[in-house]
């Protein structure tokens, strides 16, 4: 479905963000991209829909090479790729409905989008998606009136409104609490399964990735250093991806947090009695 071949990116500052990344994602597969910050996860998924221009290599979706497209063709191909963002990236001052309908922008002429007169089918799709993500009653609320989890649901509905063939998901849970994070990850994986939609998910939370992903790719300093199912993601593999020091620190941090949370819970229970 999606093939990346020798994709590299060097920013104008001279830092190589990606070097020679080759990767294939078959239809229906949910792939988790893990790695320390600065490993090039965001750059990699942005090279696919060319929000970042790759310096070298090819990206083929179906049988179209996205890297070689002109401006108008790129816009037409971007419709096939839905994207879900870290911190939602909703247009805050527009309503939920306008945000979801903005997923149709690539399909409608300017005057329709400007006057907010979308074709009946698009409106129906938007309502169906809002119902699917559980926000039917918030359609006319402004996006900035929603909670974090609700906003990310709108983000998901906007991406699906494009009727995409591929989902790019950039740290979908970075600013959400643990419980909401799980709900959002579950929603994304369910929707992908319903539609046989392949997805690339940037995720920094290793346990979350192991729980929800079918395949894990580890990125370190712009190179792929691990590629396999979550069950093969051993301590050694994680040390390879994150470096010994960082991985130990992360694990220790997780343990400390779990302890602190358990402690807080005990206190709350004691208070309740």
């Amino acid at each position, binding site marked *: 479905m999606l093939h990346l071949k020798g994709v590299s990116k060097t920013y104008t500052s001279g830092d190589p963000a990606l070097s020679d990344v080759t990767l294939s994602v078959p239809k229906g597969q949910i792939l988790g991209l893990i790695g320390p910050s600065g490993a090039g996860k965001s750059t990699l998924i942005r090279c696919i829909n060319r*929000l970042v221009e790759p310096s070298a290599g090819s990206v083929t979706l179906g049988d179209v090479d996205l890297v070689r497209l002109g401006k108008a063709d790129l816009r037409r191909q971007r*419709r096939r790729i839905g994207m879900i963002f870290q911190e939602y*990236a*909703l247009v805050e001052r527009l309503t939920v409905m306008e945000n979801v309908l*903005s997923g149709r*922008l690539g399909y409608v002429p300017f005057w329709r989008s400007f006057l907010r007169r979308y074709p009946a089918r698009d409106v129906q799709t938007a309502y169906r998606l809002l119902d699917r993500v559980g926000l039917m009653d918030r359609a006319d609320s402004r996006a900035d009136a929603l909670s974090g989890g609700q906003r990310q649901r709108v983000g998901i509905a906007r991406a699906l409104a494009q009727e995409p063939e591929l989902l790019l998901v950039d740290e979908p849970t970075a600013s959400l609490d643990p419980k909401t994070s799980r709900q959002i990850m579950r929603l994304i994986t369910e929707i992908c399964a319903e539609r046989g939609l392949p997805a690339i998910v940037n995720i920094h939370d290793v346990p979350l990735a192991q729980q929800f992903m079918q395949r894990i790719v580890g990125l370190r300093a712009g190179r792929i250093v691990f590629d396999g199912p979550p069950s093969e993601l051993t301590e050694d593999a994680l040390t390879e991806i994150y470096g010994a020091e960082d991985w130990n620190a992360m694990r220790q941090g997780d343990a400390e947090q779990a302890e602190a949370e358990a402690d807080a819970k005990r206190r709350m229970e004691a208070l309740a009695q």
Partner: protein
Amino acid sequence: MTAAPYSEIWHRRTPRARLVRWMGWLCLVALFVWCWQVMTETTIWAFVTDAPRQAADIGGRMWPLEWGYVPELLLPLWDTINIATLGTLGGVAMAFPIAFLAARNTTPSAMVLRPVALFIIVASRSINALIWALLLVAIIGPGLLAGIVAIALRSIGFVGKLLYEAIEETDARQIEAVAATGASGPQVLNYGILPQIMPAFWGISVFRWDINIRESTILGLVGAGGIGLKLNASINTLAWDEVAVILLLILGTVVASEWVSARLRRAII
């Protein structure tokens, strides 16, 4: 217990920085003294010592106020408000596209169009509305139109500058997200950028209208219509009781416009 081996002395600035600051203040005081001297050299002190008596004299001539003059002033006052409002509309309409050309993140050409847009903004800002009016009265003749165009030209710079700064401060992630759906350039503008700058746009426009009410009251001094014409006529005939009425009327209008603008801006933001 032994004393901790830490210094008890700390200064916010190094000795050198302190010396430089002290010298700076000294220069400033010296400059002030010198300026004072230059200023007083050419002053005719007879006039200055006479000032309280002159002020009292004019004040006395203003009293009693010529209230019968008010009905005659209402039409020019209406003209003044129209000059300010139509001038603001015109200025905002011209500033809007210029702001998009001037903003770094929306300009279609950073090498040619952006400098041109920035130049228009600076040119408009550097010339006072009164001077614009003086030029326009000579070009298109005296009257309301000259005043409206003067206010509009003066407003381009103010509105354009604040608006392009608002455009540059928009959240790039929201714009990126709209672009990622496959939206065209105009659609990205409409969905990604416009919603983010609308509060700034209305706030700036209303604020400028409020300033323009004040500026348009004096445009009549150079023949560009409005209540300034009446003010000029009354000053020329030394009718101080009429001048006082006009000044009070202007004061009332400005207070009212500030109140309206404050209310509107609060409602928007």
